[in-house]
């Protein structure tokens, strides 16, 4: 749980990531895909920060920026107070032992030409943190932790099922004993019955290894299950940020409300409830709407929403809306 007195492990300050769009005779940059547009949040040790949003809203870009797989266009990512953008290559390499990432697709995140054992030992050897024999021992340990029989060490990734591969991905991220792990949709590619296994594993690991997670998903269910706090993103911007309970019980942003409402409820007796369905598609991040980015789909949009972008306001429950839903109304 985020405690005010604790120092944040990671601070994101006004992070922006724009991808240039090139056109014309000399490949002029004619515009930008604003994948992430002014995102700020803090992450405290031991918590899980969930990030949700629809496809293309910039979740992965944010996640990748946190481990400096992307260089931000603007803004800062401070890990334990150090700005990742300004540290030297060498220092960054060292910092990486504390920052890890797990990817969505368990098929493309493992090098198909390497045996599992080598794949897992590699981080230790590359950072010269262990001898071959020590690494081997650590590999055995980690495989046990993530629930893979250690005789599978000599197999290649394609010989594993999706769930098992995801376990391998997790194991690899754990090899360097990181403090923070970015989980970029770690379960969306998995079978429903397997998702629970991985979610439970992540949850258990967090407890036993005292890990901090940033958990990206577009399935709210999984986020709710694992997160302490949730950031709701839309078109590269943060719409709402609050504790899980707050988000689910007292959503303040219409978008959050609509998102929650859009989920079909696995109870046929409730099928005739009135559902709030918004029309229209997510606008392109290359050409986001003026004012509040959500105004094109917002059922409550007023004139001001079309002109002025609302700031993210609030103390513990942050929301970016000119007309947040108040307690009574919800």
């Amino acid at each position, binding site marked *: 749980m985020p405690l005010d007195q604790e120092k944040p492990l990671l601070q994101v300050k006004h992070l922006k990531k724009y991808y240039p769009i090139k056109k014309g005779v000399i490949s002029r940059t004619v515009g930008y895909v604003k994948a992430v547009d002014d995102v700020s949040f803090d992450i405290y040790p031991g918590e899980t920060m969930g990030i949700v949003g629809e496809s293309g809203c910039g979740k992965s870009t944010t996640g990748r920026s946190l481990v400096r797989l992307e260089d931000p266009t603007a803004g800062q990512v401070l890990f334990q107070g150090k700005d990742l953008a300004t540290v030297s290559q060498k220092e960054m390499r060292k910092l990486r032992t504390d920052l890890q990432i797990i990817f969505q*697709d368990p098929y493309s995140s493992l090098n198909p030409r390497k045996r599992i054992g080598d794949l897992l030992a590699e981080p230790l050897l590359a950072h010269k943190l262990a001898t071959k024999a020590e690494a081997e021992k650590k590999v055995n340990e980690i495989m046990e932790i993530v629930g893979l029989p250690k005789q599978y060490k000599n197999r290649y990734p394609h010989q594993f099922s999706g769930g098992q591969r995801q376990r391998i991905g997790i194991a690899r991220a754990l090899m360097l004993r990181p403090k923070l792990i970015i989980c970029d949709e770690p379960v969306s590619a998995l079978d429903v019955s397997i998702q629970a296994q991985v979610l439970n594993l992540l949850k258990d690991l967090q407890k036993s290894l005292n890990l901090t997670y940033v958990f990206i998903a577009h399935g709210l269910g999984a986020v709710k299950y694992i997160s302490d706090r949730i950031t709701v993103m839309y078109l590269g911007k943060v719409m709402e940020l609050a504790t899980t309970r707050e988000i689910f019980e007292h959503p303040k942003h219409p978008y959050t409300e609509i998102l929650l409402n859009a989920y079909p409820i696995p109870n046929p007796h409730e099928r005739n409830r009135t559902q709030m369905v918004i029309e229209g598609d997510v606008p392109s991040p290359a050409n986001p709407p003026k004012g509040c980015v959500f105004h094109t789909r917002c059922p409550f949009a007023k004139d001001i929403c079309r002109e002025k972008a609302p700031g993210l306001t609030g103390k513990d429950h942050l929301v970016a809306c000119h007309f947040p839903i108040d307690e009574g109304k919800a």
Partner: protein
Amino acid sequence: MVVQFEKEETYLHMVMRRFLKHRLACVGVAVFLLILLIALLAPVIAPQDPAKIFNEFEAPPSAAHWLGTDPVGRDVMSRLIFGAQVSIAVGIGAVAIYVAIGIVLGLVAGYFGGWVDMLIMRLTDVFMSFPYFMVILVLVSIIGPSLFNITLVIGLLGWPAIARLVRGSVLSIKEMDYVKAGVALGYSTPKILFQHILPNALAPILVNATFGVASAIIMEASLSFLGMGVRPPAASWGNMLTQAESITVLSSQPWLWIPPGLMILLAVLSVNFIGDGLRDAIESQNAK
């Protein structure tokens, strides 16, 4: 979809298994190995010195000369056997050269991008704008036709296709999560380049190189046929066929031109079959 454990099957095993299913490819391997063997053992198995001149010129096949003698009185059979050396040497040598060049340039261009990439790609454009065979012909005629020279020339000119291929692979592999994971794990650039990217880019290179061997063999034969390749008295299938440029030879001395022609066809066909088999084996894997 769930991939299950079936057997302990490595990537290589799987490619092998798929490859072995391709019947023509297997025949191709057998034929190619045979030709390779002939080339290696030529000095042992050839009945005669291929340059030795007998007193019977243009003799038809006989017990002494199974495939007769050529217009300079040399044993055709022996020349055919030694000709295998030329085809194999050019085929493998030239491709080895250009694959090496292509890989290095492609890796560098693809991974580093920016102006390095720009420069290398423009260079490939320049090289690819040349009519390939024509330039080889001109170059060989200039530096002098010989086995070494044609191997070198084909080798020095063939790299752009490989470089582009490698660059393309690198660009796509670079975006793969396992490379990103490598970066996130703090691996050094060379380690990522050579241990993570290159091995995964090798498959299409292998396929391309195999077809490259086939085309290098044809190239050598064509150059030799035009008199710009391997020159007599050295025996090459291509220069043996030059003799068929005469109605007399064509219609009444088939032993002078049909055997070398068939050998080229056989060699090229076998390599092409191998390439096809490899492609099927490798690409259907990638598709899965």
